[in-house]
């Protein structure tokens, strides 16, 4: 039985709040926790099928051109070396998330420095690694631009928007800001590097992989290999972080499958950390000009947000920097510009909250400049500019909690203790506070799940992934809540394309999309139980393995009498997403200390207040937000790729050169969720949460630096040399 629902209308029935089990939303421990803390959760590169060989990718050392010769003799002569593969099906870079086909193939054509061009396979990993250095490669090199500032960018018509006369608004404004910020190339840096182990059985290949979206990844890998999707099985029960970097298939999975077929043995290919920097998607650097015009009362009359980003010539993706700008604040005169520089740096793609992560951060920093110019408190300035309806379209908001988040955050953080720049000095440290709004679009993606109810409990199966997002646990809680079972009696099986295809993890849509499919499957099972109890679903009470209707209470065991109830839930987005602007909302507050001697910035405390619909698990949701906020610390203070100006090559391609926030960089952080329900998001009234925490967080840190020491850093990250007061 399949229960299908297209979300064409807002669903405000609020069924989940009338369920009896009382486990949804609670801070339930992670289902897979015991396996993860004892090292027994197995990631992509942790199977050891018999006879497995090891492959190491070899990268191009030119920026653009052709591979005209590979001398393999020296490599093949080394002990243990089995083959050198340069199959034309090998791909040059990863697929974009949800792409229906494989990424560009043909490793003999080089698009960027560091691109994989060959795979060396040996019996042992050390042998393959050594042999990979023994290939003698000759190239025919072509000149290629690598600096986005030196090329004439594309200006796609569909991505430019204008309303009114922004220039006149700036001219006539009581207060205005015209500022340009730059953000560097940023990397996802999931702790588990990309890896794949491929094993063929006849014409079917099974690939254990580090991937976020198995249903579309399967199609991409099949397309890349030239086989049917039914011939590909992907397994990713545990994924060591994604943050966008594992949305689409990447060169290692394709290469492993090709090598395994050729050699007739399982082949493992794992990217080194440096290859991870070279090959996987980067978040494009950006140059963002923000123009703001306001009356004497701080009410915005003009908003301009112009972005320049980059990507390879044929890539369909460009960082949607201005995505949230049109609907966050009101102004009569508006201009959105989006330009794409075509350069030969590595492929740009989605990294956690593509668009808002850097767009909201910069816009919120510019708003801080306006608040300063107008002499209006930054929180108050934002409160005066929250629209009633979506500007431009006139659509209602499904829910808009920005004002509530700002007020709640200001109160909790002690915002009224904020002083003027340089007024608070503790020893060598200037202390300052900053804030920023958080906003991120909300999406629902088609998703399916199967739920099986037996006398012993329930089982959820879907090819959804848990990349640290808490999916195992929230799907368990949803099924437990709907079916009236203690959480321990619900098993969840994920990460296998043999299960019904799910939305996958990406774009913050995973929890609500896959969760709704589980909800629908459970709804179907509830209806069948209700029938046996002679009541309607609304009259049925399921709790602790018992069904009740009025005075009639029966054990599920008795009702099932050995029967197994199976249902599939299938959710699709529908008209509801067109009827209203759906987004998630929040407010970030940060306190920093800036050394007056060295320019060093220490974040002292951070608060995020968020409204994202129903919270499915307080504990895992909070952790998702902590993660996003810490990405914001990194973006503001330490993270940034240095491209070699001659080749575009990523110079600081390891964790000693690309600085992630460490324990010592991350202070006390507080996360608050406002009670919230959004019926436009579907029957669970739950929205995404994985990305909201990063949107604007870095802006709060930058604004706090200004408030501390009076230095406005517009070229991220705010390293000591730029901050030095």
């Amino acid at each position, binding site marked *: 039985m399949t229960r299908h629902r297209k979300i064409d209308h807002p669903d405000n029935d609020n069924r989940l709040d009338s369920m009896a089990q009382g486990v949804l939303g609670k801070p339930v421990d992670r289902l897979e926790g015991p396996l993860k*803390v004892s*090292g027994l959760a197995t990631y992509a590169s942790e199977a*050891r099928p018999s006879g497995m060989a090891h492959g190491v990718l070899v990268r191009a050392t030119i920026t653009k051109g052709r591979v005209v010769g590979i001398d393999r003799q020296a490599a093949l002569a080394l002990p243990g070396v089995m083959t050198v593969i340069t199959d034309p099906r090998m791909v040059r870079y990863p697929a974009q998330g949800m792409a229906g086909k494989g990424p560009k193939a043909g490793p003999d054509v080089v698009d960027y420095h560091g691109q994989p061009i060959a795979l060396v396979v040996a019996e042992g990993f050390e042998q393959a690694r050594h042999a990979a250095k023994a290939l003698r490669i000759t190239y025919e090199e072509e000149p290629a631009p690598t600096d986005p500032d030196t090329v004439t960018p594309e200006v796609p018509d569909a991505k430019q928007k204008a309303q009114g006369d922004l220039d006149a608004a700036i001219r006539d404004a009581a207060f205005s800001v015209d500022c340009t910020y730059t953000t560097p190339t940023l990397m996802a840096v999931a702790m588990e590097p990309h890896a794949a182990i491929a094993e063929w059985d006849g014409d079917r290949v099974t690939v254990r992989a580090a991937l976020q979206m198995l249903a579309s990844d399967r199609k991409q890998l099949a397309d890349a290999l030239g086989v049917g999707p039914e011939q590909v099985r992907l397994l990713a029960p545990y994924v060591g972080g994604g943050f966008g970097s594992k949305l689409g298939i990447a060169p290692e999975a394709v290469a492993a499958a090709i090598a395994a077929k050729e050699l007739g043995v399982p082949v493992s290919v794992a990217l080194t950390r440096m290859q991870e920097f070279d090959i996987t998607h980067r978040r494009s650097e950006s140059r963002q000009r923000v123009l703001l015009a306001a009356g004497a009362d701080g009410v915005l009359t003009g908003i301009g947000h112009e972005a320049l980003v980059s990507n390879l010539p044929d890539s369909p993706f460009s960082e949607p920097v201005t995505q949230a700008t049109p609907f966050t604040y009101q102004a009569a005169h508006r201009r959105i510009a989006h330009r794409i520089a075509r350069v030969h740096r590595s492929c740009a793609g989605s990294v956690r909250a593509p668009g808002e992560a850097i767009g909201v951060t910069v816009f919120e920093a510019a708003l801080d400049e306006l608040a300063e110019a107008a002499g209006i408190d930054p929180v108050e300035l934002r409160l005066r500019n929250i629209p009633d309806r979506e500007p431009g379209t006139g659509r209602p908001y499904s829910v808009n909690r920005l004002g509530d988040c700002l007020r709640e955050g200001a109160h909790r953080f002690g915002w009224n203790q904020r002083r003027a720049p340089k007024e608070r000095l503790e020893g060598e440290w200037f202390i300052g506070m900053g804030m920023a709004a958080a906003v991120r679009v909300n999406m629902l993606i088609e998703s399916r799940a199967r739920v099986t109810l037996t006398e012993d409990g329930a089982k959820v199966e879907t090819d959804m992934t848990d990349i640290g997002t808490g999916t195992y646990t929230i799907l368990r809680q949803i099924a437990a809540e709907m079916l009236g079972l203690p959480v321990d009696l619900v098993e969840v099986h994920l990460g296998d394309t043999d299960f019904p295809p799910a939305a996958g993890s990406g774009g913050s849509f995973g929890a609500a999309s896959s969760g709704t499919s589980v909800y629908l499957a459970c709804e179907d099972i509830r209806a069948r139980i209700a029938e046996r109890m002679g009541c309607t679903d609304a009259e049925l009470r399921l709790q602790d393995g018992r069904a009740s209707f009025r005075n009639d209470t029966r054990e599920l065991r008795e009702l099932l009498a050995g029967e197994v109830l199976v249902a599939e839930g299938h959710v699709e987005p529908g008209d509801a997403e067109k009827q209203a602007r759906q987004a998630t909302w929040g407010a970030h507050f940060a306190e920093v200390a800036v050394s007056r001697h060295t320019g060093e910035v220490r974040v002292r405390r951070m608060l995020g207040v968020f409204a994202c619909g129903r919270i499915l698990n307080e504990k895992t949701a909070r952790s998702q937000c*902590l993660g996003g906020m810490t990405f914001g610390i990194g973006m503001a203070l330490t993270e940034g790729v240095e491209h070699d100006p001659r080749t575009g090559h990523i110079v600081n391609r390891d964790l000693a050169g690309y600085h992630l926030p460490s324990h*010592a960089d*991350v202070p006390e952080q507080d996360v608050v969720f406002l009670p919230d329900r959004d019926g436009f998001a579907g029957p669970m009234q739950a929205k995404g949460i994985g990305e909201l925490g990063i949107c604007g967080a870095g802006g709060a840190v930058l604004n706090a630096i200004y408030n501390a020491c009076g230095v406005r850093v517009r070229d991220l990250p705010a390293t000591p040399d730029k901050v030095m007061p």
Partner: protein
Amino acid sequence: MQTELFINGRVHRLDADARVTLLDALRHHLGLTGTKKGCDHGQCGACTVLVDGRRVNACLTLACMCDGAEITTIEGLGEPGALSPLQSAFIAHDGFQCGYCTPGQICSATAMMDEIAAGWPSHATEDLNAPVRPSPEEIRERMSGNLCRCACYPNIVDAIMEVQG
């Protein structure tokens, strides 16, 4: 190359390439994949194990250098149903999300608690003449060799404080 390793209380005789790191010996040769490879350069801490009671990056240690050494990996600290107090505290405080850095964090914290107990000072230690006391600042400083991109740092500190405090 012949190496004898005492891992989690058991003797393992390894016959492997001299270039095999302790990390790859565990993962590729001995089936102990709880120890993770995050960077292979000693920059992330995911491969932290205890060698003769001290925390080391297994990726920077050749297996043959550990001949005769006593090694404890995450699998040796506890298992589902019999977890160490620290492993349990990581679950209770949600000290991980994706879980990939987690074995390294837990091994590192296990040794770190011994270092504090032994009075080893750190950059965060206020008074070098007084006994070292565990505090969030000490833990953040001493755990900074273990990166967590999911950024469960505050939760990890809470978990360690619960056990240490």
